[in-house]
């Protein structure tokens, strides 16, 4: 049964995977080849797209279309626990948001590893976005689990991001220095890290523009896992959907 569920999700999500890889690889390759802006900024923008925009789009297509088409009830009547169905859906979603980031990382490393940004930071910079993307996916899916249209899930995802950003900015500590005068830097206070999934923080790379996205920590993953549990419970629980 699980194989059947995986096959179903794969058939439904594979075009998103292809589209995600197309966008991420295309954007990264064109940007790094053209060099109109710094490599680090191209990688940052690619990372933002892959870790924030793509998960919201993928989350829109996980559960809401099933509700819209009325196939949720069919899924819940299958000889598999709702939690398993939901786990397969989110696992496939996680795969779909992760692979484009890995593909973009490979392209960035091949084209520009060590050119402006040291190769290991290219790899770590993209790989750090993978758990962040999964966190955003889980939160958006959970918050939109009872909504019946994709558009509403998208709105919820954007609202979630805005709340994160407001929280992060409100609790930010502005750090001015940079003796070489390159960049104004923002750094989140420590405890904010663990509670705000998406915020701005100093990149660990010494040679890179020091603005990056940071979206995960061990505690953050635990919180996201709890959010996923709530989503799984709501997914299997009969009740009135909104919209």
């Amino acid at each position, binding site marked *: 049964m699980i194989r059947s569920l995986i096959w179903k999700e794969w058939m439904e999500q594979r*075009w*998103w995977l292809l*589209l995600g890889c*197309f*966008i991420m690889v*295309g*954007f990264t390759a*064109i*940007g790094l*080849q*053209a*060099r*109109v*802006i*710094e*490599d680090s900024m191209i990688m940052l923008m690619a990372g933002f797209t892959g870790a924030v925009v793509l998960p919201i*789009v993928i989350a829109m*297509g996980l559960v809401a279309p099933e509700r819209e088409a009325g196939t949720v009830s069919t899924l819940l009547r299958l000889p598999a626990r709702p939690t398993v169905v939901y786990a397969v859906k989110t696992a496939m979603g996680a795969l779909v948001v992760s692979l484009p980031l890995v593909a973009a990382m490979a392209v960035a490393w091949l084209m520009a590893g060590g050119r*402006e940004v040291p190769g290991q930071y290219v790899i770590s910079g993209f790989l750090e976005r993978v758990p962040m993307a999964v966190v955003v996916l889980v939160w958006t899916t959970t918050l939109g689990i009872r909504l019946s249209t*994709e*558009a509403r899930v998208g709105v919820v995802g954007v609202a979630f991001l805005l709340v994160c950003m407001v929280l992060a900015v409100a609790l930010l500590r502005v750090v001015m220095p940079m003796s*070489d005068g390159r960049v104004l830097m923002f750094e989140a206070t420590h405890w904010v890290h663990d509670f705000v999934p998406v915020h701005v923080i100093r990149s660990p790379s010494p040679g890179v523009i020091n603005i990056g996205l940071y979206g995960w920590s061990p505690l953050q993953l635990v919180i996201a896992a709890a959010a996923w549990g709530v989503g799984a419970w709501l997914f299997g629980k009969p009740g009135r959907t909104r919209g």
Partner: protein
Amino acid sequence: MRIYLALAWKELHELRWFWYAGMALMVVLPLTAELYEVFGFAGRARLLVNVTLALGAAFAVFTAVAATCRDLGAGVETFWRSRPISVATYVGVKFASGLLIVLSVAVAAIVFQHLLTMALTFGPGRGDQTWAEPLNAMAVQAPVMTAMYAVAFLLGAAIGQAVPAVFLALLAGLMLYFVPVLLPPLAYMDVFEALRHHGRRPQLSPQLGELAGTLLAIAGVAAVLAWLALERQVRIAVNAHVLGWTVAVLLLVMMSVAAMQIGSNLTPERVVPVTAERNEVVLEMITDGQRGIVATVGAGQINTQSRRELPDHAHVRVDIRGRILRSIDMNAKPAASEGVGIDRGWHRRTIPLFWTPSRPQRVTVPLVFSMTEYPEAEIVFPDGLPVGHRLLGLGAFDLIRESSDALVRATSFQRLFDTPYVFNVDVFQRDNRAMVFTPGYFPHNEDGTHHPARLMELAINPDHDLTSLRSLEWPARELSQRRSSIWRALLNDEGAFQLLDVPEWDMAERLWLTLKVAGWDMPTITFDEHHLLRFTHGQGVEVLRYSPVARRDINDQTGANGDMVRFERVGHRPPTPLERITGGHPLASLVHDDLLFVIVHEPQPGMIVFDLREPEQPRKLGHYAAPGELFMSLVATPDGKVILAGRDLHIFDPADW
């Protein structure tokens, strides 16, 4: 007629909330602009454009989609199709009603903005407020809004679903605005340029007519297609797949087109590290292709307070700022200790380096000292020269030193001028000679002292002594008038001006000197044997052919035969709209083998190369960008390569292109 009126009333009644919302928005935003103005932001003029361009476009899209999709629901469509009116009538009235809403809001926004500006402008600027700017804005934006509305109307009629129709219509709006910016053949449709160009001038130019005509044609075609879609009940299914792929492909194609114009397509043969610190950059370099000397700046950690002495003739105490001469080996990274610090102030001008490969560890640099230029300096000269005199020193640097804080050694000094009033002394190099130029001064009141402009031509012998070859003077007033004629001639792309008279120099050298002493920004203008090349902002280039003027063409009062050159514009490569936006101010230029190399810092530090093999049709060969670099110098090597010097040496082989 009653049918038309009834349909119009229905449409306007249904769309009235859009009109209310649009008018409210257009009133609020100009007021916001005034608030910006109160707080010191110059946002008024921009907002006038942005209100109708950005929000107005979105308003047109939402209005059009609402007008169409509302009547394409299952029950409503069946109802109106059953009425005794033709589809053309129904669509025509719907189209016109919605367009009326959009245009009335756009025009009201512009008018309200202008009235507010006039009401709140006080003082001398009040009289400058005319209706030319708002009328021009309407002339440009009315066709834009009409086209946007019509395209959105078509998408709404063909798709029938509001969300995907809005999405695709906004995408189409982006294309309408930005594709002309990205595609040079469509530059005449550049809305932003049209608004900028026609800003405050009351005119209806052919370009504006061309733009408006094209946009109205697009609107007409879209309206006809919308009618056909509704007449034949065409309904395009747009799902997430279609939307996703459409957005992705279009955005990546637009990004690619932009990258092809301003992106990097030249690859260096190799990059050689040359500076020891991240902040250190090469100012000037000279090389034989294998070895060379670079003067760098920015390594601020060297001897900031040290006292340096000139043991032969003078003692100078200066605030050392870490200027460094380095020997370079193209095949190896130099050691950080291979440097000699010299004093600050040099970064303000090009530094001529005199160096020969036969004595690779010796470099000679002309120095100009004065108390005016070096306020921190304490200069004591043994021969009792009074402070304030300009002195030319010749620094001979031995690059084999134990450490980088070696002494500056000046082997020769010459008294340049007797008069204390000499400023802007410029030292430059021509072949193996050093030339020192002072522009002179003439006071506006007749009581002041006139100081002629002077040129000293000096040779440097192997023992690093200065030998004066010649000294020339020109009345400063005459030189000033000559500068004016040069600027007039060059800015008008044609005409003639008189060259400075330097015996035994050929025309190219005299032209170079004339332009140099005219104060022309040499990175912006350069020349080869027959052509003068002017780099225009936004990565454009103009080619002017220069030739001596025959005696019969010369007015008796302007000079003798051969003293004048005539300019004639033979070629022009205008910047594309995108290049104009991204800029490209030159920092240094070089003509080598019919190629023009220009260092620019926009959109990223790098180099643009123009092909001048056909001067009538100069073309851009390519662009090289290196974000994070700081390029200051550009040299050609004897083996035909070109070196772009910044923190590293980026070596190109034009033979590969």
